[in-house]
């Protein structure tokens, strides 16, 4: 395992492109560290981080590394508040601070299982780099609130799409697609990232089907490197895990239930 550089790095925005309702933030990162799939970075605009709604943001924000190209790191952003808003408005040439890659990423499938990637909303981000890194062909199931968000699926190859409102793809929840997949062939390992309710659905389904699941969680974070103890999620059997250092990818079996605060923006 390689360590995280012990300093924020000042990186330059290469491009910030709309991807439906999302933004794809491309950051110049030639020579930067190589992330594992599932790892994240703490990002903050170098200028005017603050001064948004309620005089925020103040702390950096966590984002999954969505893709790593030779010269660039890519992040998929959804504007849900003052921090994401500021990052969404950055344009090419502007700078941001990045600390990372942080956290424990995804592990390869066990026992020759096939990989099923299940993503919801902006939670598809870490599945893109995961798909890039898998040696096998994986099933990819992604769910979005509506058709405006479906362009996000462009980060993934051969994705089956569901929307909550039926405006594109399958009309319903992505967990329904997962349920079919698992019924067809349960010798699988599930990789999931998305809203808390989706993750909880996946967790419960994995438990019932006795299928290993790796869930990439989210949590309010102040530091991202184990310093603040703010990113706690309940561990099965009592106590808490820190999403930033014990995760963000956690074994479905390690969790009691996925807390309402521990998922991606829906």
């Amino acid at each position, binding site marked *: 395992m390689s*360590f*995280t*550089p*012990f*300093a*924020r790095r000042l990186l330059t925005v290469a491009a910030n492109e709309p991807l439906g309702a999302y933004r794809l933030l491309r950051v110049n990162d030639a020579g930067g560290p190589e992330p594992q799939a599932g790892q994240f970075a703490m990002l*903050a605009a170098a200028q005017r981080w*603050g001064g948004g709604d*309620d*005089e*925020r*943001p*103040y*702390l*950096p924000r966590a984002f999954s590394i969505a893709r790593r190209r030779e010269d660039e790191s890519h992040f998929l952003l959804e504007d849900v508040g003052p921090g994401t808003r500021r990052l969404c408005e950055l344009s090419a040439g502007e700078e941001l*601070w990045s*600390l990372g890659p*942080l956290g424990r990423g995804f592990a390869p499938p066990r026992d020759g299982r096939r990989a099923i990637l299940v993503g919801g909303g902006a939670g598809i981000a870490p599945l893109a780099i995961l798909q890039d890194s898998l040696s096998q062909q994986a099933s990819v199931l992604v769910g979005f609130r509506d058709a405006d968000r479906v362009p996000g699926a462009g980060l993934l190859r051969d994705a089956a799409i569901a929307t909550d409102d039926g405006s594109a793809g399958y009309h319903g929840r992505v967990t329904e697609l997962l349920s079919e997949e698992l019924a067809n062939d349960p010798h699988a390992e599930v990789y999931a990232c998305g809203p808390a309710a989706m993750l909880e659905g996946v967790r419960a389904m994995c438990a019932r089907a006795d299928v290993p699941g790796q869930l990439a969680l989210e*949590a*309010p*974070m*102040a*530091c991202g*490197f*184990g*310093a*603040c*103890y*703010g*990113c*706690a*999620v*309940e561990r099965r059997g*009592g*106590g*808490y895990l*820190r999403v930033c*250092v014990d995760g963000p990818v956690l074994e479905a079996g390690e969790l009691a239930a996925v*807390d309402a*605060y*521990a998922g991606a923006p829906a």
Partner: protein
Amino acid sequence: MSVTFCGLSLAHRVINGSGTFDAVAARTVFGEQLERSFPFAAYVSKTITLRARPGNPPPRLWEAPGGLINSIGLPNKGLAGYLSEDLPRLSGFVAAEPARPDDPKASAAARERALRVPLVTNVMGSTADEFCTLVDACDSHEQIDAIELNVSCPNVSTGLDIGADPTALGQMIARVRPRTQKPLIVKLTPNTADAASCAAAAQAAGADAVSLINTLRAMALAPARANGRPSPWLGGGTGGLSGPAVRTVALAQVCAVAERVEVPVVGMGGVETASHARDMLDAGATLVAVGTASFRDPQAAARIARELA
């Protein structure tokens, strides 16, 4: 330009605030880089209690204007767990004495002398007896250089923090003082009418130093009201405010305390730059601690120490 604090030799004047840097986790994340260039001149552990605590239910954080409310709830492995699991992993850190670029006479070697990072263990008891047990244990572990007493613990009879009441505080410290020769630092609570009187009581009872401020009591309501009913956002109900928002409050308390007591003062609260640190020193602090700023930038303390040099 190394500094002496309570008889300990420090590479510079910047240390961490308790509970804002987990050196064990950071070693796992950042590797040897952390050991070779530890950002703090002394390392203060998070608060250790007699028994293990899981901490508060999430959410534990709320971002406030220019700051952060935390309701972490002092998760820790308990005294025994700390001594057996963490203590062995808290040695071997060295802090570089920051180079003073404008001093041509100092050789690079002399300017960058690496100093061992003393270990301060922060403890909290719910009774004076518990404090005694905790201090005894710290006293008997050679690796612990100093003890910080977190007195932001509720007094069972009044419900107020022990640290908010000079009399109760003095009594507790007087019980603990005879049990160790190691430096005792009292971490004062800012949620009081008169931090200076609390500091004076701590000094009179034998404290070797005081540190302040701890977090200001604060609260946030959940933005989306579950079933339309207002409810606190934080799992712990209320929490403590830290960061730039509290800096000017901290400076006022540090100044009032430093004017009142002779013992050295560790000033903290919202320090993010060398200029903020200099304000604390000018207000009478001997050392400055960095807390919340490390969350934004894990090198914040090292940067400040360099700029102060």
